[in-house]
Structure formats: C-alpha cells, structure tokens
C-alpha cells in the first residue's frame, strides 16, 4: 500500500472501527437477502398448498410435476436451507464457548443442511422429470 511512513498507532488502533476481521457484513447481508426471498417463496408455497383440493399422493405428485411448481420449489429449498444455515450458525456462535466444540457443531450443521437440501431437491427433481408415476 501507499508508504509505511503514514501509518500511525498500534495494530489494534489502526483496525478499530473498521468492522469484523473475518467475514465482515457478508453473513448479515446474506441472512437479509434470504429472509426476503423466504418471504416471497413461502407466501407462494402456503397459498399454493391452500389452493390444492387435497393433499393426497396423486394431487401432490401431479402438482410437483409442473415446471411452474418445481422451479419455485427448488428456489424455496435453496433459500430456506441457506437461511437455516446462517441462522443456526449465530446460535452456535452465541452459546458454544469452546473453540473445538464450535468447529464440530459448525461441521455438523453444514452436513445437516447440505444433506437435507440435497435430499429435498432430489425429491423435487425426481417428481419434476419422472412424472406422476403412470
């Protein structure tokens, strides 16, 4: 950077007020972005479920087979699971004191979220491409 001569103060003094040193505002921002997309996609999801005549096998499978349903469902899965991942991280950071336990908790959280999201997305894709059975 521009000349070491102009830098003054201690290491701490120079970084004070500049914000977090690790990931900064990215986590906070992603949490808000997914909150808004959750709001839109969940509103669609609830209204759609309420408009279905029944929730029996055939109704649900035929419903999920349509691209106008499968695509928002995939977006909903992405948005909700990402939001879950960010939210539970805050819980872990607030309550898990020990650094080792925290790393393990974060590892388990990531495994849990990615595995569930993959399973949910796979189910939607199978129904979207495979079709309603017969």
């Amino acid at each position, binding site marked *: 950077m521009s000349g070491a001569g102009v830098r003054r103060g201690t290491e701490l003094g120079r970084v004070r007020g500049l914000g977090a040193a690790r990931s900064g505002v990215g986590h906070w921002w992603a949490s*808000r972005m997914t*909150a*808004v997309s959750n*709001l839109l996609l*969940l509103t669609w999801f*609830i209204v759609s479920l*309420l408009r279905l005549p029944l*929730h*029996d*096998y055939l109704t*649900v*499978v035929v419903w*999920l087979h349509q691209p106008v349903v499968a695509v928002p469902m995939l977006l909903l899965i992405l948005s*909700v*699971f990402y939001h*879950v991942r960010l*939210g*539970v991280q805050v*819980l872990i950071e607030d309550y898990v004191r020990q650094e080792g336990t925290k790393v393990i908790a974060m590892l388990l959280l990531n495994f849990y979220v990615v595995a*569930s999201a993959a*399973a*949910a997305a*796979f*189910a*939607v894709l*199978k*129904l979207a491409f495979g079709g309603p*059975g017969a």
Partner: protein
Amino acid sequence: MATVHSPRPRPLSPHLSIWRWRPNMAVSILHRATGNAMAFGAVLLFTWWLLAAASGPATYASWYRVAHGWLGLIVGIGFTWAMFQHMGSGLRHLVMDTGANYEIHANQRSALLTMAFSVIMTGLVWALVLFA
C-alpha cells in the same frame, strides 16, 4: 479496594434473570426459538414430505397417516404459528435494519403486533385447511 466497600452486590450484566419481561425482549427470544425449532423440526418434516412423495404411493400413505392424525395436527399448527411468528419478527427486524422503530413505545407496539399477526394468520390458515 472498592469491591470491599460495596454496599450491595452490583448487577453483573444483562441476563434473563434480571431483565423485566417486555414484548420486545419476548419477541427477540421468540425469533430465535421459532427459527431454530423450525431449522430442526419443520425443515425435516418438509424434506420427509417431499421424499415420501418421490418414493411412491405406499411411502406417501405412511406420511399421510401421521400428518392427518392428532399429532400431525398439533405439530402442524405449532409450526405454522412458529413460521408466522418468525416471519412477523423477521419483518420487524428488516424495518429496524433501516434504523426505524427504535423509539420505545413504537418498538413495544410493533413487538406486540408480530404476536397478533402470528396468532391471526395461524388461525386463518388452519380455518381454511380444516373448514374450507
């Protein structure tokens, strides 16, 4: 030393046991509780529902039996309320992120509003599910 002459123990730091319950703090902890309950409850039920549908009529039938029993009803209503409470307090957080709604009375009012919202919306949705 100053600590020796302290007339009585000083409050340590903000803590659940020394806060007086107020709508804003109740909504704050509800936001966390509902969010994390859904993260490990509703999200798994949602995934189970999709996997059951993708696995065929027999698997779906077993999901359907549980979902349409009294346990499914209680859990369903519970998570519907949790979702609307989290949605309401989440919207309140988005407003507060703009720097608005920090005046104490307005802040308390919006906190109460999120609770009214979640109860009314849960009632509305389940009235439609059960009686429409």
